[in-house]
């Protein structure tokens, strides 16, 4: 196995987000990779610049100011490889989430089978399903034709036909796509991804190959009960890259700089979560949450099996008003710990869609921003849970499976007023179960590390272990049906010093144990009232070693699902108390 020094030294990662472009520098320090610094600049994909390289160069220039290292040469290109004088970098990588979501039309046979799988495939990158065509949708061939011509998709995904299954029905659908493509001017034809019955590959190639750009991938639904997303997901990432190169000027330059390895930010983010799930306990999952302006991304992985959900409809930028299609203003309002009317919240949302880069200045606006974050994460996790492995998915009462750890990022979380605000937002939104560690990726490094992982495997491992990732807290969640105020957990804490303390946790409370950051303690958990602390079932307890995060160890006994009081005054008082408990 190679070592960091054998792998080569420095790495510059560019992440082009919807609002900001970030240039992140890693290098080997004392034999280990370290995150050194980052520079940011406004993304320039939109008008009037309409060329991402201006933002990229500004972000790198800012990084040069911070580090004192020359990274851009006189030819306005990144200096590679790095020199002994510290200038330049050895490896350059790029991730990107900026740009409008790809408009995808999904074609398949059955609603609950191939169409469901194809829709889930769409959600693995920055794309939105704008229309579906299915075998049993009752539409005539000419109606299908009109749908394709009217909605003008960027991409058509054709799924359907299990392996050794239907062929004629799939070909009839392919025929509709062929006819629509043949009626469009060449430059306006959608690209097509065929991910259905592999027996038809040649026939599909014959029908569509000469008309438009045709991508093929192994069957996303090879059997009625079998789904395989990985190959098609890789194709989707490739299609994303190809579209961004054609849509957004400057992307091709950036892609070339990175050796044609531009990745969607979400794909790179998912890689790290997948990697972590192989390292941690395979009986639990690993969860990643990235709340961005362009989308909220949920990456969950169980023993190396990744489920990626990218939800542009729940991004906190221009598309924010789309949240109101799925949730009421009252649902958002319940997360606001201040006296703010629904009219004000709605106005806030629409003003934010006009100025997505603007920041909350008042207490009320900050409360709304964090309420919207909670709701966006809740909606995203609800959608993403459809893709969790069946044996692990949400329980009957909708509780989250056991994830350990949970990694969160996104500037709304990393730039929140306090760690308490960040943790409370995540606890309210995710409502984790059992015992978990909530980690904040303070410098938004996860996606760059994911992109680097295939080139420099050591970098991901070593930076993940570094202080760049901040453990907010170890969180213990006893679940019980007991009445509020009833004791549900008896805790005995043995500190490293040997000191011991014991106390009971009551239903409906949120408590923090002051175990210092990085220090271990042993907890003896004795469930009361048949509460479940994730140690084998209701009433089962035991001893567990925990490590304190920046907020110590938190016991979230507020109930699952978390039911907030209807009375505004009582709710506000509780929020203040919870935030105070978390030091916010």
């Amino acid at each position: 196995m190679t070592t960091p020094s054998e792998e080569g030294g420095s790495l510059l990662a560019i992440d082009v987000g919807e609002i900001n472009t970030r240039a992140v520098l890693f290098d080997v320090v004392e034999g280990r990779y370290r995150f050194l610094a980052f520079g940011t600049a406004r993304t320039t994909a939109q008008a009037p610049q309409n060329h991402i390289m201006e933002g990229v160069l500004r972000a790198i220039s800012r990084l040069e100011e911070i580090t004192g290292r020359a990274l851009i040469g006189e030819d306005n290109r990144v200096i590679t490889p790095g020199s002994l004088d510290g200038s330049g970098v050895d490896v350059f990588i790029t991730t990107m989430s900026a740009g409008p979501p790809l408009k995808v039309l999904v074609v398949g046979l059955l609603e609950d089978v191939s169409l469901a799988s194809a829709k889930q495939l769409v959600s693995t990158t920055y794309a939105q399903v704008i229309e579906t065509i299915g075998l049993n949708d009752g539409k005539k061939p000419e109606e299908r034709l009109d749908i394709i011509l009217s909605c003008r998709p960027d991409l058509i995904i054709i799924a359907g036909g299990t392996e050794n299954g239907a062929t004629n029905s799939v070909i009839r659908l392919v025929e509709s796509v062929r006819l629509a493509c043949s009626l469009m001017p060449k430059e306006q034809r959608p690209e097509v991804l065929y991910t259905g019955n592999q027996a038809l590959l040649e026939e599909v190639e014959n029908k569509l190959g000469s008309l438009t750009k045709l991508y093929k991938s192994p069957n996303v639904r090879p059997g009625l009960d079998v789904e395989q997303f990985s190959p098609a997901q890789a194709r989707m990432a490739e299609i994303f890259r190809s579209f961004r190169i054609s849509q957004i000027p400057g992307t091709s330059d950036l892609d070339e700089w990175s050796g044609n390895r531009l990745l969607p930010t979400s794909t790179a983010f998912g890689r790290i979560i997948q990697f972590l799930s192989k390292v941690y306990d395979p009986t639990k999952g690993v969860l990643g949450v990235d709340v961005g302006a362009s989308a909220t991304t949920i990456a969950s992985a169980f023993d190396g099996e990744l489920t990626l959900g990218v939800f542009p409809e729940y991004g906190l930028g221009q598309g924010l008003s789309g949240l109101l299609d799925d949730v009421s203003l009252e649902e958002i309002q319940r997360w606001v710990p201040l006296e703010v009317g629904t009219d004000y919240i709605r106005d806030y949302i629409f003003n934010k869609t006009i100025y997505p880069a603007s920041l909350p200045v008042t207490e009320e606006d900050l409360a709304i921003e964090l309420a919207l974050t909670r709701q966006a994460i809740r909606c995203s996790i609800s959608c993403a849970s459809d893709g969790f492995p069946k044996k692990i998915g949400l329980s009957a009462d909708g509780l989250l499976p056991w994830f350990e750890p949970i990694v969160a990022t996104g500037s709304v979380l990393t730039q929140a007023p306090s760690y308490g605000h960040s943790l409370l937002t995540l606890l309210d939104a995710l409502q984790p179960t059992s015992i978990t560690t909530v980690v904040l990726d303070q410098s938004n490094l996860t996606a760059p590390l994911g992109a680097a992982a295939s080139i420099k495997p050591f970098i991901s491992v070593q930076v993940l272990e570094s202080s760049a990732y901040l453990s907010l807290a170890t969180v213990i969640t006893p679940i019980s049906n007991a009445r509020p105020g009833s004791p549900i957990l008896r805790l005995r804490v043995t500190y490293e010093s040997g000191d011991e303390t014991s106390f009971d946790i009551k239903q409906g409370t949120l408590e923090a144990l002051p175990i210092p950051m990085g220090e271990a303690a042993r907890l003896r958990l004795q469930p009361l009232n048949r509460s479940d602390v994730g140690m084998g079932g209701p009433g089962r307890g035991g001893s567990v070693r925990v490590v304190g995060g920046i907020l110590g160890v938190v016991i979230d006994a507020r109930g699952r699902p978390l039911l907030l009081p209807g009375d505004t005054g009582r709710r506000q008082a509780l929020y203040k108390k919870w935030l105070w408990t978390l030091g916010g």
Partner: protein
Amino acid sequence: MLAPVVHILPITRIRRHRLLPVAGRVLIRKGQNINPNDVVAEANLHPHHVLLDVAHSLGVPKGDADRYLERDAGDTVSEGDVLAGPVGWNKRVLRAPCSGRIVLSGDGKMLLEEEKPPFQILAGLPGVVAFLIPGRGAVIESVGSLVQGVWGNGAVGFGVLHVLIKKPDDILTMDQIEVDLRGKVILTGYCGEEQVLRSLSELPIQGLVLSSMDSALIPLAKEQPFPIVVIDGFGVLPMNSLAYNLLRTSSEREITVNAEKRDVYTNQRPEVLISMPVDQVVQEPRDTIVFSPGQRVRIVRAPHQAKIGTLIAIKTDLDVLPNGVKAKIAEVELENSKKIKLPLANLEVLE
């Protein structure tokens, strides 16, 4: 740091692209003088096709049907025209169920695209066609006063400006709706009543320019046939002083209201233009600017949303706002000489 720019200018030259989303027909010529409601280009965005089974209709085998076809692909037909036949002793024919164009024919089938009113893209402003973009549209150039807004309902119109607003924080109420507003473009403050919009629609008016609007009215506003432009945002907000002073003094002048939706990739914004003939050379305003002290800026978020001031200083490092949020901070002197600190991200430069 690059600054977002908004234009509120007493006189400027503007160039606007008017493009179809798909290929279509361009209906104007280079150098032509045009009005806001002139059609620049048109296309069929939502085609409707009819698939005809020729063989079944004529009662002949599929393989024989094609030899009875009377019309070819590409032909334009009217409703009732014979498309195929006659066949047999009773002279069975296939007639066109609607007017349209034959797209494809063969293998016993015929595909007909129904004739429908096309989607049209309007000029949106008075001016001269600077150049054409074949198959897609044109670039139109104009000179006049320009006020850009933040939201539009998608419609375009023009008429004589009637100034209802008396102070920047006026609220439009039902008792102000009178019949003499008919056919006018109305300049007013905040609109928060559904009934007010409905009444204006019944008059009808030619356009509505608002300082701000209740966001609950967005669905209703989108249904209105007349253009609605919101200048400063949603919620009860006063009109920014620059726009207020410029528009208030333009009473009874011809005004164009282009309430097109904002598109961040094309820099398309809802805007109002008061066209004026000028002899001297007028420059186009700059769209790309870096924040720097001395610039006039508009505040885009609460508190102080819609207020105008002068950028005094920009702090280089992140600072903490009173609510705890970390941000790059700017110092701004408002028009009342009060100095405030706020995130640089909450400003746009007036140019």
